[in-house]
């Protein structure tokens, strides 16, 4: 039985309210309360050197482009990027090619995941081909192992269909994740509608198009009793709608991305497509509302929306460049900068948003260091400053607005099931 002993760490495990110096032990891939003296002798020992030892990070929103768009990313490279960013469990979106709307595609993903260094959970489509016309076989997808259904990247526009999807998926206890965007209001839109889009002459994506669908989903959740998770919320109004819905006991949860926390549409002045995402970067008022939503629990967790695109796809006219940025390798330092240093969140709170609370949304077996939990650990130094080189990262793509920027906080070790998969430099082969 493989044994791992992590010493001299500051252990932060929000689930057990643990925060202080101590050791973490893993035996047979699971967290154990302690090791015997004999086991300690045999155990592989990692000296955390006073750095933070926390549960492996959990990301409910990644695009690994596999199958079909493996020039951008694969399950293997995506998982490596996750490990380098301290993530040990990730949920990948089904907008692959073909979309993950059949058991066969989910089986392919399960097969590919055997070569991944972190835990990769697939999701299935809400509708066939993500076309928003006909329900995908949620029951069969669930049996094949999806943890949720979503048409992410698209949004089911037909309210009747979304209502039936929620009602049907509820039978299988499958959460419905929704990318909230009224498409009729966002035709050809490439950035937030407002002062900056007016100045730049770019077609605006009004936050009202998100707010409308958030309202729709709250109403459908209340009506059907289904759990609907609202992906990457970007608008202050949406967050206020979720706050009230939660007060009313409606089963909605919601996530925010590091880029919506850190950046606003002011960053688009040079038409750099690395600031083009969907939903778009919004205003400072929206950014403040997202931070407030994370502070009071309206937003459940942080998710990266890691969305790889190659240079030749991304480096072109702003209107024609695809939306999205990679985020797994920068999420932790970006979130530390915004929430801990700028907004004085306590470190355990931030770790909670990246671990236990994220896992809880989809009831993933992850996000804690309590005994018998999976031996998934992230060790990081919150003080070290480094320059991020997206080309030197583990993702197959390098479309990041943080390329070349100084970041503070870096992952030193990532452990999955008691095995070191990232040692601060290299990915375990």
């Amino acid at each position, binding site marked *: 039985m493989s044994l791992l002993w992590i010493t001299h760490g500051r252990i932060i495990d929000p689930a057990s309210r643990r925060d202080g110096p101590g050791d973490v032990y893993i035996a047979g891939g699971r967290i154990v309360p302690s090791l015997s003296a004999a086991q300690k002798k045999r155990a592989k020992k990692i000296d955390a050197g006073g750095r933070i030892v926390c549960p492996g990070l959990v990301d409910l929103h990644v695009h690994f482009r596999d199958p079909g768009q493996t020039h951008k990313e694969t399950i293997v490279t995506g998982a490596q990027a996750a490990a380098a960013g301290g993530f040990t469990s990730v949920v990948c979106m089904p907008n692959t090619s073909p979309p993950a709307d059949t058991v066969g595609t989910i089986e392919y993903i399960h097969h590919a995941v055997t070569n991944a260094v972190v835990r990769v959970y697939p999701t299935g489509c809400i509708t066939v081909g993500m076309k928003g016309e006909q329900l995908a076989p949620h029951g069969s997808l669930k049996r094949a192992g999806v943890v949720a259904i979503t048409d992410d990247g698209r949004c089911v526009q037909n309210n009747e269909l979304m209502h039936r999807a929620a009602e049907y998926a509820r039978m299988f206890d499958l959460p419905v994740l929704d990318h909230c965007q009224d498409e009729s209001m966002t035709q050809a839109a490439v950035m937030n509608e407002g002062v900056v889009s007016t100045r730049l*002459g770019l077609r605006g994506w009004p936050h009202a198009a998100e707010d409308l669908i958030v309202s729709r989903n709250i109403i459908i959740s209340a009506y059907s009793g289904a759990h609907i998770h609202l992906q990457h919320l970007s608008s202050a109004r949406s967050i206020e709608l979720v706050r009230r819905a939660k007060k009313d006991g409606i089963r909605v949860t919601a996530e925010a991305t590091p880029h919506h926390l850190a950046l606003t549409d002011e960053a688009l002045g040079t*038409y750099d497509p690395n600031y083009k995402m969907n939903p778009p970067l919004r205003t400072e008022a929206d950014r403040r509302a997202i931070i407030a939503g994370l502070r009071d629990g309206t937003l459940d967790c942080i998710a990266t929306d890691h969305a790889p695109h190659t240079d030749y796809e991304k480096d072109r006219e702003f209107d024609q460049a695809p939306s999205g940025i990679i985020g797994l390798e920068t999420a932790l330092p970006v979130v530390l900068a915004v929430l801990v240093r700028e907004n004085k969140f306590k470190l355990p709170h931030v770790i909670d948003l990246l671990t236990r609370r994220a896992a809880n949304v989809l009831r993933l077996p992850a996000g804690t260091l309590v005994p018998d939990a999976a031996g998934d650990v992230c060790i990081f130094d919150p003080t070290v400053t480094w320059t991020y080189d997206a080309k030197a990262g583990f993702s197959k793509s390098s479309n990041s607005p943080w390329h070349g920027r100084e970041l503070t906080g870096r992952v030193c070790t990532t452990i999955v099931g008691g095995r070191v998969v990232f040692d601060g430099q290299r990915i375990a082969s």
Partner: protein
Amino acid sequence: MPWTRRHLITIEELSREEIEQILATAKAFRSILDRRVKRVPALRGKTVVNFFLEPSTRTRIAFEMAAKFLSAEVVSFSAAASSTTKGETLRDTAQNIQALNADMIVLRHSAAGSPLYLSRLLHIPVINAGDGAHEHPTQALLDVFTMRDKLGSLRGRKVVILGDILFSRVARSNIHALTKLGAHVTVVGPSTLVPYWFEHLGVQVSHDLRSALADASVVMLLRIQHERQESSHFPSLGEYTSMFGLNKTRASWIKPDAIIMHPGPINRGVEIDSDLADSERSVILQQVTNGIAVRMAALYLCAGGQPEAVVNVN
């Protein structure tokens, strides 16, 4: 102050002094247009490539003539005739044009920001001939050149821009140019095409034509770009004309010495009464002629010429 820019991408980034320099240079070139032999050797041996990925009549011909009058070689090509229809990217096409020894590129593109993108990619000057709904700097320069010619200083003058402001690069460039030159700008039109965001660019937003026109020295009409809009922006061209079209009654609300401008192409009977377009107050065709001089100035300066040296060039 010497001229230092190699590219002309936006009016927004220009200082008032730089606008004055271009206008002064254009004024010198304007006199050439009245000569029998319209040619100076300023750009002899240079090749200007007009790279137009959107339809254009006036701008493209004016740039071609401007380049020819400066003795440059000029090559023009459009989207339909280029490899962009074969899937070649803007980046690759532009780098090929540069590799073909072009000395300057004049770009018209439907995507806002694309001239800036090319200017960072290439080592030859890039002149923006209109990028999406963003800017059309030489249009604004020829407009203020024409206004100056007719009215003198623009400081304190009221300029009304009427029509589809939201989708208009002409409006944006004119807003920047006019506010920098001290004019008071009011943008007018239906609320869907004139959103209040424009107030942040330093202009008045109005949906009431009568009060907006009251003390205007200039009324600049913009074409309703039905090709850029979904049907939801206003009910019909007929309704637009009845609410915002400039007809004789409404033209009587403006000052007697005010001028009527339009960047073209005009839709007679839609945004402007046909007779008004041809009236004494209309300077529409003078704008077009001045456009050559302004583009000569833009090409000359971005190629490394200096404003004070124009006299020698002549």
